[in-house]
């Protein structure tokens, strides 16, 4: 942008601090920007005058639900208050992402974040920029991003709009991650009509660094320079945060396309390499990515976390649209931008590194000895605010909440044999298993996962469809991590407190069965409107449940994201607290997968099976039923299972957790994903065949061990207080054979595979 253009804008009249002070009665569009009357009044009280239009833009976007967590904050405090004592946590909640010590001087940072609303409007770009945003958060901690995961929720498979969203989201996650060069190591994709108008796109990124490389978002040191580098600033995503993420979609449908950001993964790749080089040479005093709320967020976060003020010269920001007003520049959510605070001695080298990677870099400001964040447009002061009031002192709501009146009736509606007829013959059992395996939520994910690069960087030890993604961090020692991302929203709909704990329980189990030690948690809390007291109750219960369970398991919540307003008109999504668990493995060569069993190995079921079908896949697929009591949460058993698996990993030839669809689905998956069959009998188990096969009780896994190791592993289970059952053997014949009280179920691999592999392509056809 030339200075003449800027001069033209200035002449049109910029709302300066001086002008604001002199014109207190000017009508301002605070309501259109999403502020409430009392919030606007608070801004006036803070500044002791009316805000300028640029200040109004900053406050409105930073005080939006998405940025300020104003409805959720009072509840989220529990994650700190109930934080378990652990040596592993190096950086906790509040920074761009939490950091965990995994030993040998290595630190790992990971976080999951939502990009739900943009992904409904523009599935490809919404999902793509969701990946881009979370990767920059990880980068801003000083870490090299290592891998991504995605947890996705779509509407009903048969709905005409579903394939548009699935196709766009999957292509977007893949298109961005593949071009960025990060392996996608796992996640989930779930179909349910409650997500029809509110698909969920939750993206996780994990990165690693040496302890001494941890960086924080703060601007300190008077005279230090503020460098903006990366993509030029454009008009994309202006107001995206406040307009999109904090408003419910109304019946008129989306007409807000320009508010969705557009991603450029190539630029992000350059940004990663150039930033890592700056870290390596210790050139950066503080750093912040530009995501939601763009410059408003980056400048106010950096300034409020530092020990001085900051001055920014907005006309220096490189633009790709010369007509943008200062208010638009400050709100723009253009992607692939970072802001670093650099000592003047290092500025030449920083600019050199950016030039080497062809990345535009501009000094846009400096750290001052004042206390305010001041933004100038040419020589005119257009923002003069205490930065904390923008970044951290946003409104906090104690929103009213109460237990939904309808919940008692839903919980009383158990999937009894009268309401949901159960299979009674071997033929019916077979039919139910086949219907489960070809259902949208249990069928083969290959159509989706084959669009993601899982090999790039050369450290992927396990990716989908394994229970967790496993990545090698240190090539010499083999030290690595396992990560899993899970949630069953139907459990949340039955009981949000238990639902959140069950999500954690499953992710913890998935990490444990890969032989890793679970260390820490990240969460993405997806809920409906906080203005609905019943939704707010669901949210409060889920947070309480998750915080309580994290305390018990000794795995702190290190950071995450809240996504509210996921509802269409009066209908909210199921409470969907997606939970990510990170674990460490001393040597990834000792990891356990669901492959590795040999013919003749014994198949053991570890864990207690109760009569628990409510919210499970069997009730959902066979009867479309959602009611009853969620499975019992048993964290002690979960910890015991993890310990047994970890301590006996050399004896365990393969392991697979039991979750969606229970034992029937886990056994079928073993047949489908290996070149062997399984032949088991349920005669010596603790419950009837139907319960054994379809219950979704927690803290269970099927493991295979050599015949001579059965006694040792079962003795360990007994010592740990876990029941175990010897179910049968790994057979050469590639089929699923189960002897039950109703007779022998025998399904060939071909029969299982037919519906299982064709279901997702059929949805997308």
């Amino acid at each position, binding site marked *: 942008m030339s200075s003449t253009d800027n001069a033209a804008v200035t002449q049109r009249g910029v709302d300066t601090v001086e002008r604001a002070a002199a014109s207190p009665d000017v009508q301002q569009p605070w309501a259109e920007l999403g502020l409430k009357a009392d919030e606007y009044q608070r801004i006036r009280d803070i500044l002791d005058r009316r805000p300028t239009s640029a200040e109004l833009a900053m406050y409105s976007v930073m005080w939006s639900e998405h940025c300020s967590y104003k409805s959720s904050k009072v509840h989220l405090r529990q994650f700190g208050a109930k934080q378990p004592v652990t040596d592993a946590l190096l950086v906790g909640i509040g920074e761009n992402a939490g950091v965990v010590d995994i030993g040998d001087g290595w630190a790992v940072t990971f976080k999951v974040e939502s990009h739900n609303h943009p992904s409904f409007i523009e599935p490809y770009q919404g999902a793509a920029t969701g990946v881009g945003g979370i990767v920059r958060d990880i980068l801003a901690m000083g870490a090299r991003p290592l891998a991504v995961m995605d947890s996705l929720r779509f509407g009903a498979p048969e709905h005409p709009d579903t394939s548009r969203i699935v196709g766009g989201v999957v292509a977007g996650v893949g298109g961005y991650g*593949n071009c960025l*060069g990060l392996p996608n190591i796992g996640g989930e994709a779930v179909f349910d009509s409650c997500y029809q108008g509110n698909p969920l796109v939750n993206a996780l990124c994990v990165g690693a660094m040496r302890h001494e490389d941890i960086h924080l978002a703060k601007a300190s040191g008077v005279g230090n320079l503020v460098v903006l580098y990366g993509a030029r600033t454009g008009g994309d995503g202006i107001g995206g945060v406040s307009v999109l993420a904090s408003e419910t979609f109304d019946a008129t449908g989306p007409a807000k396309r320009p508010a969705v950001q557009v991603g450029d993964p190539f630029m992000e790749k350059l940004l990663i390499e150039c930033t890592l080089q700056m870290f390596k040479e210790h050139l950066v005093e503080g750093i912040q990515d530009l995501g939601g709320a763009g410059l408003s967020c980056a400048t106010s976060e950096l300034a409020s976390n530092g020990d001085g003020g900051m001055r920014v010269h907005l006309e220096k920001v490189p633009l790709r649209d010369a007509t943008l007003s200062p208010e638009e520049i400050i709100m723009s959510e253009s992607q692939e931008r970072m802001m670093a605070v650099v000592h003047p001695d290092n500025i030449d080298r920083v600019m050199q590194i950016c030039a080497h990677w062809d990345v535009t870099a501009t000094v846009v400001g400096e750290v001052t000895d004042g206390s305010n964040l001041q933004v100038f447009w040419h020589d005119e002061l257009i923002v003069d605010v205490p930065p904390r009031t923008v970044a951290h002192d946003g409104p906090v709501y104690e929103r009213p909440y109460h237990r939904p009146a309808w919940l008692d009736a839903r919980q009383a509606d158990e999937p009894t044999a009268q309401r949901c007829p159960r299979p009674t013959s071997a033929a019916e059992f077979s039919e139910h298993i086949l219907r489960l395996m070809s259902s949208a939520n249990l069928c083969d994910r290959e159509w989706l996962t*084959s669009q993601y690069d899982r090999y790039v960087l050369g450290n992927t030890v396990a990716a989908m469809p394994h229970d967790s993604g496993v990545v090698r961090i240190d090539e010499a020692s083999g030290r690595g991590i396992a990560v899993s991302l899970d949630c069953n929203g139907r459990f949340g709909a039955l009981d949000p407190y238990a639902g959140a704990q069950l999500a954690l329980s499953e992710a913890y189990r998935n990490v444990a069965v890969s032989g890793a030690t679970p260390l820490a948690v990240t969460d993405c809390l997806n809920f409906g409107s906080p203005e609905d007291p019943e939704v707010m109750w669901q949210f409060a219960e889920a947070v309480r449940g998750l915080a309580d369970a994290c305390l018990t398991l000794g795995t702190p919540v290190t950071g995450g994201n809240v996504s509210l307003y996921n509802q269409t008109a009066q209908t909210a999504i199921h409470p969907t607290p997606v939970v990510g668990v990170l674990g460490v493995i001393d040597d990834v060569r000792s990891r356990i997968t669901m492959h590795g069993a040999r013919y003749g190995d014994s198949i053991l079921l570890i864990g207690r099976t109760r009569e628990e079908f409510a919210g499970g896949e069997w009730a959902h697929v066979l009867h479309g039923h959602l009611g009853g009591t969620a499975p019992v949460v048993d964290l002690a058993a979960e910890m015991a299972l993890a310990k047994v698996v970890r301590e006996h990993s050399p004896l365990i030839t393969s392991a697979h957790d039991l979750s969606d669809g229970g034992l029937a689905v886990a056994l079928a998956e073993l047949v489908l994903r290996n070149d062997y069959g399984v032949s088991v009998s349920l005669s010596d188990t603790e419950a009837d065949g139907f319960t054994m096969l379809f219950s979704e009780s927690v803290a269970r896994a099927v493991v295979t061990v050599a015949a001579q190791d059965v006694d040792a592993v079962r003795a360990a289970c007994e010592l740990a207080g876990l029941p175990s059952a010897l179910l049968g053997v790994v057979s050469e014949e590639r089929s699923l054979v189960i002897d039950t009280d109703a007779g022998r179920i025998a399904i060939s691999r071909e029969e299982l595979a037919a519906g299982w592999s064709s279901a997702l392509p059929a949805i997308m056809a």
Partner: protein
Amino acid sequence: MSARIGVITFPGSLDDSDAARAVTAGGADAVRLWHADTDLQGVDAVVLPGGFSYGDYLRCGAIARFAPMMGAVIDAARDGLPVLGICNGFQILCESGLLPGALIRNNHLHFICRDQKVRIAADDTAWTADFAAGQEIVIPVKNGEGGYVADERTLDMLQAENRIVARYVGNPNGSLRDIAGITNESRTVVGIMPHPEHAIDPLTGPTADGLVFFTSIVTTLAARVGA
């Protein structure tokens, strides 16, 4: 002295560190080269790695072909320098004119990443000397624009001159005549769409089959020195 093999990094290269790791695992020294330089530093061979050079904007490999370092590579390749182009590297070789044909959007229009069975057809190139013709290997394929195309005459010529290096067993992208990789007349320049550098250790890849490409070049270079 070990052979020295250069790995070029373009802006947007993604598999360059994987390629360097594979070069080392194959018994050579990996020399990292930068696209904007012109000095090949006396390397004995060059790998053009996978990725999205320059974002794959305009057309895959079309911009990378004009990188200063590619000028040096093109000249040296014409003088017999062995070059292996993997995925995006294969696209760059076609754009450079070092190999005939082109790579276009997959026929199913999706990016595809899967473990791919490939049959080695030519075991007498600089990069496949340690294979036996007809050998079947499994290495990852991952691309959005991996469909090999050329006119019928070129395809017939490649076949007649045994310049088809590897063929897909189960075509993943609509490549004509199941072509996964080809070589030039002097059998020193090889372009291959699937990724041997991602299959050098069963811990992190489907197999270690890909390692043979990197031991092959060491064999080839040793034979040259011996000759």
